[in-house]
């Protein structure tokens, strides 16, 4: 090989599209970085100049105020960092309960909207149109102020068999506490689950080999009930119940679901379920009617047709928009600040911000939390979507 001596040497020229592309990229990066630096530096200087403490040291200081609902132990002498964890857990609690309930309700309503029964069909339509079109904050305020706070006080609460009490203080119920048979019971549940997995594998294998279906669901349910029940008979009850009792101002003992939590979960569930119903309906509609006819002509009854033919194909259309509904639900939980439920925005970006005065740090932390929650939900749903996507062979 001989080097090309006579070839014109490439000069850096503005008319070269490659050079131009690089130049603009560099200019953009410099602009973005310097804007970021300017904002950061100016904030720092201003904070210092005005004598506003900055940094994250405040997280270690003790909070000194009470919190209505905490899933982990908390006393007033605990740190702001622990308050942050409590706020985060309270947000996640609402999100998880809301997502599960909204999905169940949404699927039911969505299928109901396709029902040939006129009554069920119209009821589902009315549900969707009503709850989809009212802003979620109004729904939260409605459930809280118009439903839960108008319940009678604890002394005149609605009593359900001396075990459940509904009052303006929320839903009081018996607390389950670990008894002698608790650990054997846990072990037996694990054993039952392992047995179910083995049974399902065996059944699948047999189905593929011989085509004979097996009642996996019923057999699994039987295993799940029989094994732990036998265990409880031998080792004694796994749990004992602590009943709520009226004492002084309020119920003592037992568990309580505070009305703020109930109102928020209910409102978000009902609101999001309306959207999910529409997504489910469109998903099922997207599967061509020929699939149903083909399944029927193979001799499948309506139930298995829906479960084994329609839904798996519909899920591919349902999952992506469902993800954004889950994200909306997680973000809408911040509206709880309006009714005093102690979640991230109300507790951390509210009380903590005000007690410490460190607005920038607190708001930054809160924003990153919502970002992290949303991205986690997104990743999880994308993974699931990939798993159920059509595998082309």
């Amino acid at each position, binding site marked *: 090989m001989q080097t090309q001596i006579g070839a014109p040497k490439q000069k850096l020229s503005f008319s070269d599209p490659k050079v131009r592309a690089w130049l603009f990229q560099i200019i953009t990066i410099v602009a973005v970085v310097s804007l970021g630096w300017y*904002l*950061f530096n*100016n*904030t720092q*200087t*201003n*904070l210092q*100049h*005005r*004598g*506003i*403490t900055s940094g994250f040291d405040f997280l270690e200081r003790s909070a*000194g*105020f*009470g*919190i*209505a609902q905490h899933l982990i132990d908390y006393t*007033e002498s605990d740190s702001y960092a622990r308050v942050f964890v409590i706020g985060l857990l309270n947000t996640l609690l609402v999100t998880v309960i809301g997502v599960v309930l909204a999905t169940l309700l949404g699927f039911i309503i969505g299928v109901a909207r396709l029902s040939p029964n006129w009554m069920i069909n119209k009821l589902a339509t009315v549900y969707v149109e009503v709850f989809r079109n009212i802003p979620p*904050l109004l729904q939260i305020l409605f459930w809280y*102020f118009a439903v839960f*706070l*108008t319940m*009678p*006080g604890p002394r005149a609460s609605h009593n359900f068999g001396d075990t459940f009490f509904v009052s*303006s*203080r929320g839903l009081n119920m018996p607390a389950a506490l670990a008894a002698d048979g608790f650990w054997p019971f846990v072990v037996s549940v694990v054993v039952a689950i392992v047995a179910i997995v083995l049974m399902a594998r065996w059944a699948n294998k047999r189905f593929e080999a011989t085509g004979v279906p097996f009642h996996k669901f019923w057999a699994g349910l039987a295993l799940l009930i029989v094994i732990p029940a036998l265990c409880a008979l031998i080792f004694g009850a796994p749990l004992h119940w602590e009943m709520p009792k009226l*004492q*002084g*101002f*309020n119920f*003592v003992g037992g568990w309580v679901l505070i*009305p*703020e939590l109930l109102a928020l979960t209910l409102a978000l569930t009902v609101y999001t379920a309306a959207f999910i119903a529409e997504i489910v309906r469109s998903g099922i509609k997207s599967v061509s009617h020929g699939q149903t006819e083909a399944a029927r002509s193979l001799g499948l009854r309506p139930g298995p047709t829906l479960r084994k033919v329609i839904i798996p194909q519909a899920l591919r259309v349902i999952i992506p928009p469902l993800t954004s509904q889950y994200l909306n639900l997680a973000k809408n939980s911040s*509206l709880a*600040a*309006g009714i*005093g439920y*102690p979640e991230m*925005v*109300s507790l951390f*970006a*509210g*009380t903590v*911000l*005000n*007690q410490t*005065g460190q*607005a*920038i740090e607190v*708001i930054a932390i809160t924003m990153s939390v919502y970002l992290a929650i949303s991205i986690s939900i997104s990743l999880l749903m994308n993974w699931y979507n990939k798993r159920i996507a059509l595998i082309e062979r």
Partner: protein
Amino acid sequence: MKVLKSTLAIVCAAAVLGVSGFAQAGATLDAVQKKGFVQCGVSDGLPGFSVPDASGKILGIDADVCRAVAAAVFGDATKVKFSQLNAKERFTALQSGEVDILSRNTTMTSSRDAGMGLKFPGFITYYDGVGFLVNNKLGVKSAKELDGATICIQAGTTTELNVSDYFRANNLKYTPITFDTSDESAKSLESGRCDVLTSDKSQLFAQRSKLASPKDYSVLPETISKEPLGPVVRNGDDEWLAIVRWVGYAMLNAEEAGITSKNVEAEAKSTKNPDVARLLGADGEYGKDLKVKKDWVVQIVKQVGNYGEVFEKNLGKGTPLEIDRGLNALWTNGGIQYAPPVR
């Protein structure tokens, strides 16, 4: 949409800190004179302290402190614009320069004075303390009987901390429910969500007057904390701080010298008392030192009133609140309101 609004306000204010220029001593007065009015942060509606009337005019002792500052700076007490802030928004609004004075029943504490870029001029508008408002049906006569109670509190206040201190000190249990606005907490007390509403005592009387049947509720005798409420300014502007401080003291001194909105003009012309002559600008250049009008105290007292007049007009016997002067009487009358002299 209050929640969204307040969160947005905090975020915006934080962003303002990012792009705004430096604060300088004297900058606030210059800016105020240039724009022609004082921007004053007040509460979101607390009878007696700052509450809008039917025509939207803000009434109350906190609002009058701002009017007095305007009277001193411009010679015109109407040159004030008010921003209604909830407890959570207030400090960010002041830090970011959205308001020039925060006169919003705010308790002076060391951490607020030192760590948050704020300064309390030291004039205390109202000496207050935290108390409890309960439904008579509960039959509670003392705060010590509140073990196990559910308590409604306004979020982001010193009350949140004081209540927790009190219950811990007395080994009592409680459940706090915190709301953004005082209206929400009052509504929850009426509906029975909480047994007790707690706040500064003056606020409890004000909130009780707003309930559907005020007779059914009473304020417990205990006062569990010290809550000196006063105006706040930004850190780093000593000139503005001095103006706000001495406007407050001037109102107290005027009451002590017996100068009222009725007799102030006559006194300014004909007084023989050297103390009063200095106060009213007939002798010396004390207004000039503060960079306000020479007759600043005359304008304050004529247009707004002395401290006693302002107190009676907004909180006293003639109002629905019917609050006694108590601690807020002048030191010469058994209270603790004591102002250093103007000289």
